[in-house]
């Protein structure tokens, strides 16, 4: 940025009182050039073409049209996989969220002062988040066998990393005043954390976990690909047979389930705050 300021020197402005003010040359051209470059590069590499979208956009709805009306008769075969999906999401989200707590505490800069611990834990969380869930699910299937157990393991790992990051960011935004007050009253750090930080982060934490649960129910449909059980399995099968009306039914059921979960979680979050 120093160099930038040298190339584009700041503008001098003289006030009537004789004072001068320097205005740095705006960064916007730099940012715009960068964005434009990325845009052009990306459009070139990905072959993005608006004209294709205009001409062939209607093709997008072909499969969608085949899903409507959904095959209602199929619903009886959806319930069991749906329950499996919900079960594995529920348990996976729960385990992951619980596991995330200790890690996010030691990843929060206002609780732990040691820079190295912070860096290591954060890097660890970041690495886990980077590991594609498909890969973790696949590895899990080797260890736990095919089926919902593997899905559950993959979900809990994903949840762990996601909730862990969110939680430590939330802990860092807590106003440490009450914590300080607790310390001044003679409480140890752990007691202070429990009484002064937990009430602040608890609602946000629960809300993150519930959001994650809801996302996981949806995501579980992808895990079916590696044989992690649940709705994903029958979804794959029905797509394979081109039975889009059944696919539509599965999605409708999934939509309703997620809707229900979202409703419940909305209610709980309301209650918490």
């Amino acid at each position, binding site marked *: 940025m120093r160099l930038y300021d040298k190339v584009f020197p700041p503008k001098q402005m003289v006030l009537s009182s004789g004072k001068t003010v320097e205005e740095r040359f705006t960064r916007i051209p730099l940012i715009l050039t960068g964005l434009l470059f990325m845009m052009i590069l990306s459009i070139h590499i990905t072959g993005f073409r608006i004209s294709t979208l205009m001409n062939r956009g209607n093709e997008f709805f072909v499969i969608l049209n085949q899903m409507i009306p959904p095959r209602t008769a199929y619903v009886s075969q959806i319930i069991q996989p749906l329950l499996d999906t919900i079960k594995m999401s529920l348990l996976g989200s729960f385990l992951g969220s619980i596991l995330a707590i200790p890690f996010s505490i030691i990843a929060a800069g206002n609780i732990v002062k040691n820079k190295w611990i912070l860096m290591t834990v954060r890097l660890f969380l970041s690495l886990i988040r980077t590991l594609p869930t498909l890969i973790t699910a696949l590895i899990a299937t080797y260890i736990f066998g095919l089926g919902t157990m593997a899905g559950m393991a993959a979900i809990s790992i994903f949840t762990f990393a996601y909730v862990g990051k969110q939680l430590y960011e939330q802990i860092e935004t807590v106003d440490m005043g009450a914590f300080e007050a607790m310390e001044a*009253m003679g409480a*140890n750090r752990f007691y202070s954390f429990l009484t002064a930080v937990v009430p602040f982060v608890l609602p946000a934490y629960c809300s993150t976990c519930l959001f994650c649960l809801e996302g996981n129910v949806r995501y579980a449909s992808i895990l079916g690909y590696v044989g992690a059980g649940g709705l994903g399995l029958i979804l794959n099968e029905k797509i394979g047979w081109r039975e889009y009306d059944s696919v539509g039914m599965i999605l409708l059921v999934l939509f309703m389930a997620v809707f229900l979960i979202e409703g419940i979680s909305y209610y709980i979050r309301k209650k918490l705050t």
Partner: protein
Amino acid sequence: MIEFSHVSKEYSNGVKGLDDVTLHIGQGEFVAIIGLSGAGKSTLLRSINRMHEITAGTLQVNGTDVASLNGKKLRSFRRGIGMIFQSFHLVGRTTVIKNVLMSKVPAMPFWRVVPGIFTKEEKIDALEALDKVGILEKAYMRADQLSGGQQQRVALARTLAQHPEIILADEPVAALDPVTARQVMGDFAKINKELNITILLNIHHVELALAYAERIIGIRSGKIVFDGKASSVDKAVLAGIYGEEMPEGVEELYEAV
């Protein structure tokens, strides 16, 4: 009884927060500390319960050398000293009484801390503290639904429920409007009289300091430049404390003196 003898405090960046302070404060006194921003008021206060470490001299509270304390001993020493902050430092999301009950936590066994179980005695004690500061009826409201003045009173009740012998207050009324500030200062005065608790407070409002405290300590660049009765403060004294950099508005107060 608080005894500073030749206490100095140098921050890691070389700034002298306190510079050779010698001071004696008896039990039951009501002392206001005034001085410019950065003069060292907070540093002085926070040395007393060792929220800051001093770097030279000795500081005794009721005969205990503060510097000698550590770990468990330090924590139980701190339980005897209440501290009140400018921005109240309450847990806004929970009820008023839970905030007051926080003062009980340091002495509680672990199994009661985690689920947050309090005994009936503790609750009654907390309610009595709220009663003392006159906001008993707000006990089950959420703390963040109270006005600033009421929140500062909750903080005061929390400190009272600690049954301290000393209360340290770091600009307890800075965030309050003048009317409420007066009420809170009145609360301090009342508690000081009724319970014989030593009160030390930092304050920017000279007029409030003069109106409520018995003793005024003026501090400048870490040094004590005035120490005497509130009634003995005059123009010259204030000029000595605030120097040329007197905050605007203070001039007008001279007339009030």
